[in-house]
């Protein structure tokens, strides 16, 4: 059965191309454009993985991770952001993110590779 991935990205062209790539690779993709919508979706669930942007309207990515942690929503999160400060990476990982990718520095194919790597390692 296809893995279900929630893509949270406020830049719509990016969300679109990322979803397209993931669907092309055989994943089932839901796309949202703000943090509040991410929380709504993960509460409804179930998802196998969330690709989470950090700077988003309404609720930012850090707050999403924080709420998920407090509400014990155990969906693995890979952060895809253009923030690259050590503090930000550390904060996201401390809040439970399993991986952190800087968007400008990765190809779409690398994102797919990292997702597959994660699924393979967690099986």
């Amino acid at each position, binding site marked *: 059965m296809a893995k279900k991935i929630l893509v949270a990205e406020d830049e719509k062209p*990016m969300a679109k191309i990322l979803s397209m790539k993931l669907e092309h690779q055989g994943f089932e993709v839901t796309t949202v454009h703000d943090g509040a919508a991410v929380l709504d979706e993960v509460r409804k669930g179930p998802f196998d993985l969330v690709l989470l942007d950090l700077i988003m309207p309404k609720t930012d990515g850090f707050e999403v991770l924080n709420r998920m942690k407090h509400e014990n929503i155990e969906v693995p999160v890979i952060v895809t952001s*253009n923030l690259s*400060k050590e503090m930000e990476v550390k904060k996201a990982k401390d809040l439970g993110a399993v991986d952190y990718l800087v968007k400008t520095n990765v190809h779409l194919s690398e994102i797919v590779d990292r997702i597959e790597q994660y699924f393979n390692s967690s099986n």
Partner: protein
Amino acid sequence: MQLPMSISNKIKGLILAINVIIFGTAISLLFFLSSISLNENQRLLISAILVIGFLIVFMLSCLILLLLHSTVEPLDVFINAISQSVDLSTLKDYSDKDDAIGKVAQVILRVITDVQDRYNQLEQKIEKRTKALEESKAKDEAIIKNIAEGLVVTDLERRIIFINTTAEMMLGYRLFELFEKKWPDFLEVKDHNQAVLEETRYPINLALSQREPVKRDISSHYYYKRKDGSQFPVVSSAAPIMVGEDMVGAVVVFRDVSKEVEVDKVKTEFVSLASHQLRTPLSTINWYTETLLSGDAGDLEPDQIPYFEQIYESTQRMINLVNALLNVSRLEMGTFMVEPEPINVTELITDVIKESQPKIDEKHIELINVFDEELPPVLLDPQLMWIIVQNLITNAVKYTPESGSVTIRVTRQDAGDKVEGANIIEDSVVIEVTDTGYGIPSYQQDQIFSKLFRADNVREKETEGTGLGLYIIKSILEHVGGKIWFISELNKGSSFFMCLPLSGMKHREGTKALSAGNYN
């Protein structure tokens, strides 16, 4: 000055005294003879003896006085002349004589004239030197008073001896208020994070304990508290004052960096904003182009592909440039982190080579690896090492014409070894990247590590390049105790050498990790 009685006067006095005593004695004896009963003949005989005796003594005295005049008196004149109590003309009178005394007088006159000449010359020299010293002192005082930096001079106990006008104005204190107070205890010094600075970290304490100058830059500025309670940022340096081998005090120089701190803050904010704002559209272009080229959005016409490849490559360059600018700003602010872990250097290099392999193959470049396989793992930050090695290798490949060669040599060098003119200070790993490329023109070799610098010859051949790669490598290596140097010959090639101590890099906290990328 009271001079001692001269020798001739002493002798004259003695003779006079002897004559007076003998004359007195003779008169007394004559009176005595008249009172006793003697016949006339006896009285005449004794009187004659007494008169003749007195006359002999008197004549002897006259003779002595004559001798005195010709021998001892000139001696007196000589002594007085030497002790400068008489006019030299008296001595000149004697020097005109053609006897022994005259010759002695001539010698003494010559010596005294010579001594006087030398004395006068010395006086003139001292006067000249004193004037020069006064001029130099006035110049120094003018400089010290008018430099834009605050200047403080202390003794070995950090007690203030002097502060210049600029320091007085910056701090709001006058010298008399601070005289002999301990620098900088009364300023409540804080570090750039506004935490109270421990006494042991005061630059002046470091300078006095290490007996060498301590320099600070904008990345480690301090805050001083003025007399009125307000505080301001300063960059401060301290140096011991050495007199020969002895340390006698310290000098502290500081400047107000309020403007620089403000600019730095704006720069940081701008870089942060720019990085995020630029990265988002760049990521979008990057991913869309990648999708088109991969065929995920449908097949492209074959003649369209080069156009998309060009867009893709240009986007990669722009991403690299943004990452490089971010790294430069982090390096300059000293806020990048160093997280060392045991690294197998040759494995890391092999991985970097793999990344560059497509370009190496495309240009038919022969790659020669000479690795010391017994090199132990070294504590290094893998990300920083990746940036350094990747830039060195891509540089060599980029600036070597087709069918050239690139040699990567990894060796262990012991302390005291020499590698191409550089001294190895401690046991180190040395990475050498040698190419058969364009080389660096000799007139530009001293600028090759400057920010944004690209040599004239490669500007013509390779339009791509930011001129940041070598600057970043050098900055990183300087922060982690490493070193980079090179030799190069135009149109023959270059060899870049970098060394890192086997003891590895030291852990360093920072706010940002550097982004990997090829910036050349």
